């Protein structure tokens, strides 16, 4: 029941709209079937399943709006849900940022966002994958903790102005942390796909296990500025934080790293190394995504940064109209254009540097400069003459993605992570401010 076809979903939504007495009405149906399994200390700790469909109805009277939801779809329940949304709307204050609902939209097609193999995952399959991963670690006398989570979802939208949208998506995430029994070594691997066909638990477990074994007896080296190779898992969050800060209203209001001295924003300015190009594309075969935003705006291919120049900022509909700027919704994932070199190739080309597997507990320190702090974790290694020489103790860093993307030495081949395409990055003068004893 959780996954409705386009026709089934739109039939329910049409019925919902037919009950509306409001000035405007929008109905959204979404459903997810999925499951997860978690392990720690090489044994399964918890497992669970999700099976849910829900309907949200937004009714509007003038500039007042109300939302109600339900998860049963018989006629009486639907009617009550619409009534409740209308009652709540009538009591709500007027929104000074009211924007009328949109009429019919043209959306791109992104059929690759659904993979049948992922939708067909069973609890047995999850247990087998985690089980195989645990067995691999048992054999090597290592301890693993892992999480496997998959989902098959749909979303359908329809409003009283004629907008109509539907899409189905699948997703799977896997993370694993492998530790040595003495607690002196720790390794990590992560994967995220739309299509199960690309998933290989054994390969990921081996990567994490190798990192765990080779990170034992880490040497302490002085904190300071180092050339680093950030693996995609280390680069992703810093870059995502920056992408999440590209809101035009904050910039125009003077409270963003994109605010301009004296007013306005930095659109059109070159802020990064010219090898930096970041865009989003919901039809990209490797990171297929929703082709419409939560409010129904179409998701198109958008270039955010091109050859180091800020090309676009995203905005709410209200702010786009008020500031007379392009109406672009924030993307859900982003793609950084990469090169051809793998992380291993980047290591080969490095005279002296530090390989970072992953960054952890990243927090904003100064929104003015996008300065973040956090720590390395689960595999940090010293590189000399193109080779990994020895594991080093973890560092705390204080660094800004804006500074990182100016101190760029090399960009490797992008891989998928968290719905983004993220290349490994080689960066000079990355700022480590202290050492951590954590493993």
């Amino acid at each position, binding site marked *: 029941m959780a996954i409705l076809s386009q026709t089934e979903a739109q039939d329910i939504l049409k019925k919902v709209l037919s009950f509306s007495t409001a000035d405007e009405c929008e109905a959204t149906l979404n459903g997810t079937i999925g499951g997860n399994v978690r392990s720690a200390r090489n044994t399964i700790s918890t*497992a*669970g399943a999700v099976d849910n469909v829900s309907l949200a109805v937004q009714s509007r009277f003038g500039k007042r709006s109300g939302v109600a939801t339900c998860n049963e779809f018989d006629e009486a329940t639907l009617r009550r849900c619409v009534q409740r949304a209308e009652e709540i709307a009538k009591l709500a204050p007027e929104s000074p*940022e009211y924007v009328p609902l949109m009429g019919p939209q043209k959306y791109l097609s992104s059929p690759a966002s659904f993979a049948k193999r992922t939708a067909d995952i069973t609890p047995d399959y999850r247990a087998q994958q985690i089980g195989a991963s645990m067995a691999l670690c048992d054999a090597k006398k290592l301890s693993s903790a892992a999480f496997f989570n998959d989902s098959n979802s749909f979303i359908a939208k329809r409003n009283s102005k004629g907008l109509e949208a539907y899409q189905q998506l699948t997703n799977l995430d896997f*993370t694993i942390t492998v530790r040595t029994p003495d607690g002196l070594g720790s390794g990590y691997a992560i994967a995220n796909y739309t299509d199960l066909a690309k998933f290989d638990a054994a390969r990921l477990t081996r990567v994490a296990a190798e990192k765990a074994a080779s990170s034992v007896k880490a040497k302490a080296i002085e904190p300071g500025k180092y050339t680093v190779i950030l693996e995609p898992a280390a680069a992703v969050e810093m870059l995502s934080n920056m992408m999440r800060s590209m809101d035009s209203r904050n910039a125009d209001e003077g409270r963003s790293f994109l605010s301009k001295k004296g007013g306005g924003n930095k659109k059109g300015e070159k802020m990064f190394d010219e090898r930096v190009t970041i865009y989003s594309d919901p039809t990209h075969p490797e990171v297929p995504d929703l082709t419409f935003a*939560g409010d129904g705006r179409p998701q198109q291919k958008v270039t955010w940064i091109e050859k180091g120049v800020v090309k676009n900022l995203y905005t709410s509909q209200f702010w786009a109209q008020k500031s007379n700027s392009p109406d672009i919704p924030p993307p859900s994932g982003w793609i950084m254009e990469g090169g051809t070199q793998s992380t291993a190739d980047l290591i080969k080309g490095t005279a002296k540097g530090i390989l970072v597997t992953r960054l952890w507990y990243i927090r904003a320190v100064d929104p003015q400069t996008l300065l973040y702090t956090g720590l390395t974790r689960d595999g940090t290694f010293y590189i000399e003459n193109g080779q990994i020489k020895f594991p080093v103790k973890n560092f705390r860093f204080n660094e800004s993605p804006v*500074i990182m993307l100016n101190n760029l030495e090399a960009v490797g081949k992008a891989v998928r992570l968290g719905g983004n395409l993220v290349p490994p990055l080689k960066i000079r003068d990355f700022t480590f401010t202290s050492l951590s004893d954590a493993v």
Partner: protein
Amino acid sequence: MASRNCARAALSFHLRFVPIFTNPPVLFPNLYNPLKRRDFVGLTGLAAGTLFLPNFPSFGGTPVDPSRLLEPGVDAAMKKRLADAGLNAAKAAGATYADVRIGRYLNQSIFTREKQVQNIASGESYGAGVRVLANGTWGFAATNSVTEAGIAKAAQLAVQIAKANAKVQKEKVVLAPQKGFGDVTWKTPIQLNAFEVPVAQKVELLLAANAKATDNGASFVNSSLFQINEQKYFASTDGSYIDQDVHRIWPTFSVTAIDRASGKFRTRDALSAPMGMGYEYLTPKAADKIAGAAGTGLIGYRNSYDILEDAALAGKQAKQKLTAKSVTAGKYDLVLDPNHLGLTIHESVGHPLELDRVLGYEANYAGTSFATLEWKAKKIPFGSKLVNIVADKLQPGSLGAVGYDDEGVKTKQWDLIKEGTLVDYQKTRDQAHIVGQNESDGCCYADSWDSVQFQRMPNVSLQPGTAKMSVDDMIKGVDKGIYIAGRGSYSIDQQRYNFQFGGQVFYAIEKGKITEMLEDVAYQANTQDFWNSCSAICDQSDYRLFGSFFDGKGQPSQVSAVSHGSATTRFNGVNVINTARKIG
């Protein structure tokens, strides 16, 4: 179409946490969580926001009219009958232990900016979760069909899951004994249920606070009010039928000052604390105000909060921060206000003493702990002799206060650190035996009926000094130091050694006096070095609670609310860095 049973080891993520403030009010280990990307709450939520950056956090549940939040739930006799159906079904299916939690979770959030309301959301979530032990293994299932048949079906599913998992389980679960309490009740001792206060009155207060901030120099201000009521019924095969009514409230704001000419901006967040109280927290009382260090204008708030006064000061301070002196990096003696120190206690003491982390159960996400059982046995000083830290689920007004935890254990207070030495951890029933104890500490909590209960942090508080000492007395003895108030940037490693904290306001202390405001301050330390450098603690009259509404843990992630009490405390020779950078 019938409603479905959802079998979940833990919940789908129904709290959408968002950086509406400079530093999001969430203590999640990682703000960016790749596993949460396909969360559709943003699409159906009140904000009608987007997947990428929804506008407002929501506590989930079904959106309801505010008046619904005052309607009574099902009566206790009915809940007992429903729960018994689940317990009996579980036993019949082969469970050796079972508990049923019937939960009605109510919430309301109000968001404003400057002169306008941005969002008002009232929500209700109702359902039941059944946890069972079968073949020595846990199983859990939840249902929103709160009928005898619905709960019985969830119980059978939970037993099925337990038996399936038992096949790959290596160690059987051992539960500490727990006597049944029969029919008992507990209620947060509130004076005024926040849901009884008209929404218009609450909006008016927030808008008045916004006006105070802008009148005093703020360019922008966002304010919000979160209100929670958990109506929880717990029943177990031990013979407990526990009915609890738990209330929490959190007023907060973030003020921004901007200097257009230089392009500089600075923020100052509220110095309120989320509390286990009713709306009475928002009626300021003179007796609850504690003066901060002389020369700063700061005021600490104990059991009531003056949002208008704090917003006015925040407007002034945000503006002052634009031109404050940038700190010179180096070693300083730190004088830390309780509204700041609470978060340092949370991260560097609260988390490393969670027994599940110590044992490795959180290795893949939140991490493990330096304070292992072997480390404890060595009796290495965690802190100086002045450091006494207690855990409790009792303090009136605290977020952790309840009568019983989510597995039917009566709550208590116990020592974690005594005169600088680690003496105990935080435990649940299935962990007590691991450290040779035969009772739980009452640390079990689930954030919803559809998430499984597990070990969560109780209140963890630093005891005040026994000798009389005010903040000004403390500052008199400091030659070169920094006074820090408010919760700023925070980050700590996965074993809780190395941390870095910022704050909201910073003042230089020179030769026993506050001299001027500082900016770009963060301190970095090692947990043990830091607590061993603790050299003075103000007395009881300065003691108050800090709190967090959103402490994150587990996969899928759950939140919990927790308080941390302390008095202003001095730490000697801590490393301070300057966080100013130049871009573009």
